[in-house]
């Protein structure tokens, strides 16, 4: 199986925030911590697009690279997790992450003070699976139940896909093929140079 990945289909995302509240609900996340958010560009004008963003579980995670206490690890499935007991709340990960995934609660974070919190791909953390300690610190471990992240499973329009990267890619590819567009948001035009793709402008994003 491939790594676990998220992909948000911007053609379908309607900014309903279902993914945001699904996550809050699933893990009892306190006010002020937003593991997942919806980002909208061109708000209110033609060309408005939204994507749902949380931790991207990078293969070469900057957070993991910069952490001064090395509290990050990556599971076999590619999920990037961290140990809150070790975390000193330095916010270096916050600085390094291009997606704004690290969150810092005001007071207490699932029972532990001021530690960094972020999307876990619903894979819990370094505590016994499905134990009270795991839920209090990291939230639900859906992967250990054979389920997938709550945000992706509850997405209103099935825009947000989350799961085995291979399967996700298949699902997305089918959609793009059927509708003939949508992939340009993710740079397919640049990457694959389709004959009918517009010529890339130097310096501009595709």
């Amino acid at each position: 199986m491939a790594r676990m990945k998220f992909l948000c289909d911007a053609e379908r995302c309607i900014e309903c925030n279902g993914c945001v509240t699904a996550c809050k609900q699933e893990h009892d996340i306190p006010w002020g911590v937003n593991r997942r958010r919806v980002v909208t560009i061109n708000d209110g004008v033609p060309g408005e697009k939204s994507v749902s963003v949380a931790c991207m579980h990078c293969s070469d995670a900057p957070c993991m690279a910069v952490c001064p206490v090395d509290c990050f690890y990556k599971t076999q499935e590619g999920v990037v997790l961290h140990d809150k007991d070790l975390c000193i709340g330095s916010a270096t990960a916050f600085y390094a992450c291009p997606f704004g995934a690290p969150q810092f609660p005001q007071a207490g974070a699932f029972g532990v003070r001021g530690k960094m919190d972020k999307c876990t791909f619903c894979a819990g953390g370094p505590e016994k699976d499905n134990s009270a300690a795991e839920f209090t610190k990291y939230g639900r471990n859906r992967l250990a139940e054979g389920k997938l992240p709550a945000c992706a499973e509850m997405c209103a329009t099935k825009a947000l896909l989350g799961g085995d990267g291979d399967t996700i890619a298949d699902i997305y590819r089918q959609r793009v093929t059927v509708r003939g567009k949508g992939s340009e948001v993710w740079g397919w035009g640049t990457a694959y140079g389709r004959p009918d793709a517009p010529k890339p402008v130097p310096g501009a994003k595709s």
Partner: protein
Amino acid sequence: MMARITRIATLAFGAMAALMLAGCGERPQVIDYKQGTYQGKPDDLPYAAAPFNGDKDKWERDIRNRTQNQNEYKRIGS
């Protein structure tokens, strides 16, 4: 010679530290820090506990199947 003594001393010190702390069940105060590697607690594999009980293939199959719930084409057709 000096290097060897230093090494023995380090080992002895480490052993003593471990000995002193062993009884209390505490983590060593001086962590043997290896830069660039994970320093935290170990985590379980997601298929370790029930209902998978270590069956990695079953878990992967289930996950892959479950991912299809996010694909309405499966149920709607075209």
